[in-house]
């Protein structure tokens, strides 16, 4: 049911941990064992089974605008913040 996905700009990510708390599908996690160039543990989509719905909730909360959200092409576009 891969209806959506996200791309996280991990160099921009500050590992604040907000997106993992809001994702309804629990498919975002902080990479505790990795540091980006600025010293943060970035968030990553860990979604092997394609649970991400492209709902965009993670993007709504991300203070660093790291997340681009995609959804299956056929899905009717619904702007995230309308």
């Amino acid at each position: 049911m891969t209806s959506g996905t996200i791309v996280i700009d991990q160099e921009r990510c500050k590992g604040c941990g907000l997106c993992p708390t809001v994702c309804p599908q629990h498919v975002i996690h902080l990479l505790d064992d990795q540091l980006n160039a600025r010293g943060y543990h970035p968030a990553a989509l860990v979604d092997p089974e394609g649970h991400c719905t492209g709902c965009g909730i993670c993007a709504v909360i991300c203070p660093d605008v790291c997340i681009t959200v995609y959804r299956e092409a056929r899905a009717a576009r619904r702007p995230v913040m309308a």
Partner: protein
Amino acid sequence: MVATLIPPIEMDVIYERPTALSPVHTHYCPGCTHGIAHRLLAECLDELGLREQTVLIAPVGCSVFIYNYFEVDSCVAPHGRAPAVATGVKRVLPDRIVVTYQGDGDLVSIGAGEVLHAAARGERITTVFINNAVYGMTGGQMAPTTLPGQKTTSSPAGRDIRMTGNPIRMSEVIAQLGGAVYVVRRSLHDVANIRKAKKAILTALKVQMAGLGFSLVELLSTCPTNWGMSPPEAMEWVERHMVPVFPLGDFKVTDAVKDL
């Protein structure tokens, strides 16, 4: 670490960076909701097509570098004086959109007089007011919005309201002024509230476009660093402690605004 920025094939972009935001890193602490407020404002500027006609007035506070983050003309005001600076700009350029972005120290403390008078005059400007109950930039001192009992670096035993009074609810104060036509308080502590916050900013900008008067959107915001909390804890603290003291709501929406 290499960030994967290649878009997935055959999918539509549902959400991406607003073009009003510059493609740079911000200096904000992890999880600081200043970042969310920036994004919302940028999205609104994009949606209303205002980027090229906006002048943004930066405050002194953590958001002093906001000019680095927006693709708009901007001007850094002295601490607290953004509404006066905005007045100067707007009077000369009445058909541009002038937005001040101010923290609670900036707007409620040192700059109380300036915002009060800009609102009273009905300056056709929009103020985004980030209330994080603390002076973020200087390291977490007490603000006029600090909660009773809240520990800060200048109220180490907790804010003593007998000596410093209760927090000032600035939106309620500003709503009293004739020239203020749209004054609301929203919060950034969760997704639903963030969405409402965006709607409010959108309305505030429309109020300005219609030349109706002064508009202000207060946003309850976090300062995980100076509150000594993780970002998710800070979000919860806003909901549990700030919202009861700073009730969310519309303090002034004139009929003309409702008609927009």
